[in-house]
């Protein structure tokens, strides 16, 4: 089996997709928590996935790394930014995608695609945790729940709280104040989701063309997609296997680099 590897070295998780170049399909995919030993963690995950397929590294024909830790991975042939990889991965899952909203652990992005699926333009949040998965983690921690159950908590809200600050540090202070004032954790959770969605909508500046596909780890938090829909006034589709789209795109781009003449399915 000939394998093209895509590695997304994200701020919270490392994601890897093995693409079977001969069969044009995903051979294996997996993820692991990120840490200080980024290259070792990526290598361990890669080897584990290969072994699971009865393979070793000799099967690798091309490897593309993406994500904020991409430049630390010497096993990659090349690096490509997560903007391009997310666009490619989303396009594979949703060929009709026009706008991609990607909220990951460290940043949030908007990617506009042209008719052929290429990146036309993009926007990213500033360098702060506001509006990112890290922000949700801080909130969940403060509310004493897991990020995964934050959406379920928010769904019980009767009146989402107004969170005025989108700086993660100041917002935490606000949340403490709201809880002290007797606001329910459910209303705080819903308020935070609304605030993140509003921030993303502002970043778009009205330039949101449907279909809008929502990807990245935060897309899996229940309630976030509907918060985005409310903030943008548009339909939002959650991308299948959202946390993996960056690695998927990297694997597809690796396969394309391997043989530029050979079309890879979209």
């Amino acid at each position, binding site marked *: 089996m000939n394998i093209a590897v895509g590695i997304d070295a994200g701020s919270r998780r490392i994601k890897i997709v093995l693409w079977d170049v001969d069969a044009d399909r995903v051979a294996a995919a997996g993820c692991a928590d990120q840490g200080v030993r980024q290259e070792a963690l990526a290598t361990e995950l890669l080897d584990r996935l290969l072994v699971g397929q009865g393979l070793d590294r000799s099967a690798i024909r091309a490897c593309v790394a993406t994500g904020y830790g991409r*430049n630390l991975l010497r096993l990659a042939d090349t*690096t490509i930014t997560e*903007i391009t990889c997310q666009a490619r991965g989303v396009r594979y899952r949703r060929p009709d995608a026009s706008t991609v909203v990607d909220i990951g652990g460290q*940043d949030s992005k908007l990617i506009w695609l042209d008719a052929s699926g290429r*990146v036309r*333009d993009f926007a990213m949040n500033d360098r702060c945790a506001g509006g990112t998965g890290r922000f949700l983690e801080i909130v969940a921690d403060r509310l004493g729940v897991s990020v995964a159950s934050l959406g379920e908590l928010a769904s019980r809200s009767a009146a989402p709280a107004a969170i005025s600050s989108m700086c993660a540090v100041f917002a935490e202070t606000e949340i403490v104040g709201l809880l002290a004032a007797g606001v329910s954790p459910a209303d705080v959770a819903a308020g935070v989701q609304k605030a993140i969605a509003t921030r993303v909508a502002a970043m778009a500046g009205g330039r949101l063309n449907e279909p809008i596909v929502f990807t990245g780890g935060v897309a899996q938090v229940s309630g976030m997609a509907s918060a985005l829909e409310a903030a943008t006034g548009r339909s939002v589709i959650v991308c299948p296997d959202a946390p993996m789209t960056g690695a998927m795109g990297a694997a597809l781009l690796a396969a394309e680099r391997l043989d530029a003449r050979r079309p890879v399915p979209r």
Partner: protein
Amino acid sequence: MMGELRTISLADWRGRYAQLRESGLDEPGYGGPLERHFDGGYRRLARLRFDPSPAALRLWNLVLTEEDRLHQARRDGRIIVGCMKDLGTIAVLAWSLPRVVAFYPDGCWWTPCIMEGFTPLLKIADSLGVGESFCPVRAMLGAFLSGSEFPEPDLLVCGVGATCDDFSAIAQRLEATGRRIVWWEVPHRRRPEAHEASVLLPGGYVASCRSVEFVRGELERVWAALCEAAGGLPLDAGGVAAGIRRANALRRRLRQLRETVFLSPRPLMPSLEMLLAEMLAIHYCSDWDEAMRVLGDLCDEVTRRRSQGLALPAAEAVRLFWVNPPADLRVMNLVEECGGRVCGTDYMFTHALDEIPEDLPPLEALARMVLADPMTGASADRAGRICAEAERWGCEAVIVCRVPGASHCATEGIVIADAVRDRLGLPVAEIDVPPVADPIEPALRTRIGAVIEAARGRRK
């Protein structure tokens, strides 16, 4: 056959310098190995990649020895004028007077970068209540108070009004330390009303004649102050006209360099050295003759490279238009490392690159140049010029670099980015660059890399 040039590190420069010396390198008095500046505290040099030519070495040495020249000017009894905030007009006026040396104290804004934060300048500014909510140019306050960067000027001139709120506040704080400043007002460049006579400015903007008249009056006042500081010299319009001709000679040489580099199909000079070369237009790095010589050498070098088919790697480099200077010089290296090249610029002093009219009374010509500054009008005006320039240079993407704390950057970036998207349909990235950007280098690489990838994807 195309040859490839490689940028080199500071450590590489040691061997390269020895090699050049052996082959008879012609050096000016301020010459020498680049590493001596590192030894003197300019630690950031160790993180930069440099052009390996003698012309680039001379450029770096000129830029990094300005302090020595100013101290020498003081010892020689010359009159030192600090031209603050204005980026290309008062310096022309000051340099037209005999025995006057004009310099740009605002240039200290790069000190926190070049010294990698190991400087007391910002702490001194903090102690005066000018903290990090201000642009890094606040380092200038520390420079004045410590006397560490330049000798105390004999005269300080500062533009105020439609220039920069941060800088006005910083300069006012400086004045409160007991220094006399000759303030002059730069009015907002407004669209002339229907009944007003108007004038077409260099660069293409239009202003009312009344605005030009007002600025001319302000310049006359500054000119009188300069002549008085220079020992009671008479107001000599012929001298100013000669000063304008000298400024234009330098601007023409810089234009030749920019056109050769920006229009070349392959990268002939790194973006970092081009940024430094453009800075010479503001006040000649306190030595017009040497600035001319340096630009001449750079022109010769890029012309030689072009004729010999030599270029930096990345033949497919994406042509970028760059807006605003980065507070960290290292970011200019990132452009090339990410597969781009800078082929058009607006570093906030484009009016210092345009030629000053020589067929007008000198102060009238300078007044028009003041109003031709894109920074003194609406952000939409500046965005319009940026779009026109990006199109002219054939740029494929635009990077708007923001300076943390700089008040105009907070809102202007969006206006420029929207204009580029709407009018040119090019991808745009907005980036924030602090004086030492190492901790956010991965994020900067992502933004710069993504805009380059997007532009490259559009070629297909």
